[in-house]
């Protein structure tokens, strides 16, 4: 199975960085998705990732990630794309015990520390003062199985 990983901020009151692990095919501006699929005569089921994760309605979902699942593409609307990162397995950290025991979903793989401002880091030897962000790593296959297993059939003409 092919896999790729990307970093896409979800949308909540405080911005959340999500590292999505799964077969990502395309990143499309939201306002063009419908036109693209109409031209190709295909149907793209779409959900807001923010809502799927239980974070509530997104402030803005400007990009759509087209992800393959069970042979079909489905769309995940996100606020934006922060970049594509290759993450080694050793970079993935487990959730702290209190969080892990209270997180019933298998789709949350763990956390990855991302350097968001390396210039600040160079100025300081204290790791507590570096500007690092935590990204939540999500297994899209597992997320779909748990929270979006069925896709309604497209409406007929």
């Amino acid at each position, binding site marked *: 199975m092919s896999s790729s990983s990307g970093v896409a901020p979800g949308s909540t009151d*405080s911005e959340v960085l999500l590292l999505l692990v799964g077969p990502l095919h395309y990143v499309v501006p939201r306002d063009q998705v419908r036109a693209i699929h109409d031209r190709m005569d295909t149907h793209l089921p779409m959900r807001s990732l923010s809502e799927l994760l239980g*974070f509530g309605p997104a402030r803005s979902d400007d990009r759509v990630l087209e992800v393959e699942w069970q042979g079909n593409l489905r769309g995940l609307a996100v606020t934006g794309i922060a970049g594509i990162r290759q993450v080694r397995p050793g970079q993935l950290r487990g959730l702290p015990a209190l969080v892990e025991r209270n997180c019933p979903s298998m789709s949350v793989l763990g956390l990855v520390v991302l350097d968001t401002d390396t210039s600040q880091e160079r100025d300081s030897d204290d790791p507590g003062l570096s500007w690092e962000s935590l990204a939540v790593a999500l297994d899209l296959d597992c997320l779909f199985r748990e929270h979006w297993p069925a896709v309604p059939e497209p409406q007929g003409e």
Partner: protein
Amino acid sequence: MSESKGEELRRAFENAGLAGDQEADAAEETIQILSFSLAAEWYGFRLRDLIEIIGGVHPTPIPFTPAFIPGVINHRGSVVSVVDLRNVFGLPGRGSGGAGRIVLVTSDDAIVGFQADEISDIVTVPISTVEPPLSTMEKVKASYIEGCIRLPRGLLVLLDSSTLIGELRMRGEG
């Protein structure tokens, strides 16, 4: 011989004096508490359990976790859970988020952050002034509480960090 007897007596007096001091210390045994406010109520952790107080940090939310866990933070290279005590205690208002402070407390080798509206001060009180939790408190809530202390500014609820963290961990297994 008499010199030896004198030495014995001196030691006996010294020991007696020492014992007297120890009794006095036991009578005056005190604890230090970091006090903070939550929804206009006073809470505290024992100072010995305090790691650090940090501010201006927004916890990273973790999907599918209950509301009492606003997220996690990266604290000096370690990922630390953050707990919203307002939610745990059913207090009014939302968690203070980045505007407030996070009190990092240790228990059984784990560090957990607790959101606080405002850090007050460190109070030193005789241990004898720590009263059992009020009988009117809910049983579950009372289990998190080591005791209550009457201060001039009001009642301060001393939290038992070990029990609190242990019970919050168990919630997910219930």
